[in-house]
């Protein structure tokens, strides 16, 4: 008879042997795998460590699995098992790259082998431009990292605490490369460069203007007439002195005047020096809007069907004020008809003759569609066209 201690020892040894045998079996899978899977597909300048070590079973279950590609667990979780630092960064980032958010690591990385560092099939820039078509412009003047395709000089493709996935906010990011003293400081009226927002005037990718200054310039800035604005206190009056007629555009039931103390509320949306778009709205399309309407952008991120050019809010909404709900430029049907000219003639009845049963108000396009945030249904319908949407009003059908 063996003592309990001896029994435990025997059991432990047995478990170790079983585990070792299982590991050996797993390691032999690779040779079995390559009987069907061509080895050429696993070759490249950069090879994923498990592939290099023939450990196919590190990621794949050879017989059955719940996940595509016979992955042992969900893709992102599987990657994070080894790439812990990325997992930590992702968990701490306020802004995540969409593929990271989707847990779709293979959107950018080849899991077996690739030609470029970071297991990428293309250069970093080419990989980025697969989805991000917009910045691929030919500027007269380009930012060096942009011209060299070094997107990751400024952006972190996984996640960051900053919007647009930039590593650090300006000016800290910019001043990492650009000298803080001398000519640069002099050209900025000897101001403390750390107190300036470089991106409000400069396009970080490129511009047709020298020094990467954004192409639409405020008239006094273009003329170098700084004193026109800078000799007055930074209040709305500084803008209204020239743009006097603009104030009446705010005298609407829905108004965008939103001050936060003694500053100039115009600067909430407009940059006073240079921008990429007319109206001197700062940032990329929708960026100025997002600063306050983050909730709308977040809801939109969760929907499947979105309106085209959804980030160009100004297509449908007034910027200063409107007498329509949600600051639409006009009545909803008229706004939609601006682009959907033909569709407006063959829709479900709308207007005074078609009353929404739910609230007794005339129906319009946005009774059934949600073009702003999008929905989970085709054509941004607010419910299934197969029934649930129609039954909102046509009860009993």
């Amino acid at each position, binding site marked *: 008879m063996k003592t309990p201690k001896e029994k435990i020892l025997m059991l432990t040894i047995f478990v170790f042997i079983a585990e070792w045998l299982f590991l050996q079996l797993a390691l032999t899978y690779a040779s079995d795998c390559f009987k069907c899977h061509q080895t050429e597909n696993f070759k490249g300048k950069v090879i994923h460590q498990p592939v290099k070590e023939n450990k196919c079973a590190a990621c794949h279950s050879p017989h059955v699995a719940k996940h595509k590609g016979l992955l042992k667990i969900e893709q992102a979780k599987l990657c994070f098992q080894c790439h812990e630092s990325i997992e930590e960064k992702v968990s701490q980032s306020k802004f995540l790259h969409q593929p990271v958010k989707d847990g779709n690591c293979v959107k950018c990385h080849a899991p077996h082998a690739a030609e470029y560092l970071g297991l990428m099939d293309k250069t970093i820039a080419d990989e980025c431009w697969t989805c991000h078509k917009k910045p691929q412009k030919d500027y007269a003047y380009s930012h060096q990292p942009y011209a060299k395709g070094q997107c990751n000089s400024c952006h972190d493709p996984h996640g960051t605490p900053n919007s647009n996935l930039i590593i650090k906010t300006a000016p800290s990011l910019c001043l990492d490369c650009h000298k803080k003293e001398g000519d640069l400081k002099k050209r900025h009226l000897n101001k403390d460069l750390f107190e300036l927002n470089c991106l409000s005037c400069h396009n970080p990718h490129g511009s047709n203007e020298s020094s990467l200054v954004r192409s639409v310039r405020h008239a006094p800035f273009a003329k170098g007439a700084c004193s026109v604005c800078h000799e007055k206190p930074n209040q709305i009056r500084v803008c209204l002195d020239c743009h006097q007629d603009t104030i009446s555009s705010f005298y609407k039931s829905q108004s965008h005047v939103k*001050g*936060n*103390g003694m500053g100039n*509320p115009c600067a909430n949306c407009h940059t006073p020096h240079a921008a990429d778009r007319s109206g001197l709205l700062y940032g990329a399309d929708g960026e100025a809007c997002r600063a306050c309407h983050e909730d709308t952008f977040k809801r939109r991120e969760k929907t499947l069907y979105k309106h085209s050019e959804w980030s160009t809010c100004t297509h449908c909404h007034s910027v200063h004020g409107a007498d329509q709900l949600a600051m639409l430029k006009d009545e909803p049907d008229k706004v939609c008809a601006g682009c959907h000219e033909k569709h407006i003639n063959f829709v479900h009845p709308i207007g005074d003759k078609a009353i929404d049963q739910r609230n*007794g*108000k005339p129906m319009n396009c946005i009774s059934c569609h949600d073009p702003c945030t999008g929905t989970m249904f085709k054509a941004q319908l607010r419910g299934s066209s197969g029934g649930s949407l129609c039954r909102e009003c046509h009860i009993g059908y």
Partner: protein
Amino acid sequence: MKLRSFIIGINFILIILSGAIVALAGNSSWQYFGQIPLQNSEVKLKRPIFIDIDWQRQRYYVVEIEGKQLVSFDKERKMLTAFNADASLKVPIAMARDSQGNVWVVERAENQLLYIDFKEKKIDKFTLTHTDGSLVFIDRLAIGPQDFLFVLDRMQGAILKLDDSLKVIKIFSSSAQDFSGFHDFKIKSDGLWALDGFARKIYHFNTHDDTIEVINFTSTDLQFPIALELDDSKQIYVLDRHAGHIGVYDQKGRFKYNFIERGKRNGRLWYASNLIFDWEGRLCVVDEGNGRIEMFTR
């Protein structure tokens, strides 16, 4: 032994059940009461934007933006009068009544304050400026003790206390770095309560001891908070325009529960703009998108 275990088990179940009942009661005590105008009435509101309530005379006054009028309703929610101040109202967005029963209206089309003297049948129009001459962008307003007029200046995001000659005598604001301007305010017996929606904060300016208390909301699911109200026990009700619901918070800003849903059917909200309690403790919510005042009771 078995009996003892049985009793302990029953007690345990009862504790869980009572906890669940308390939690449910806390969350679902609000019920849809009805609407203004009455559902089957021929009176329709196109786009109400603001409501004022006369507790003494038990009347509701609705500012109707598309109809360009003020509409009053009795305690049975039947329409009394519709008034457009001799077509002086073009884009009325808010109103308040003084102790004489006369009315202040914010007229957005001209960024003016209208004072309607019913006895004299006279309408006076005023443009407000700060003492330094800068423009006041008038938004919401309320009458405080001794008929002092308080207006929300959207240009600075501050609340202004005005004297009889409409001169700014006090500014309620904040120098906090995250101050984004007030969206709404209410005057209560203990002072002025103001909502800084984007910063997710409530400011309580105590008029008795001149202190300022700042309440941070603990809930992060607020989407677009635009109006506030407080009940007798000083629970804070925050109207979330985009989410279409009302969040309830305690005095420490701790989230208690949400009620109401976004939608177009009765009892739901579609771009609601304001909320206020009536004399019966019913919560009246101005539902701009659905063209009605939704009323909730508990």
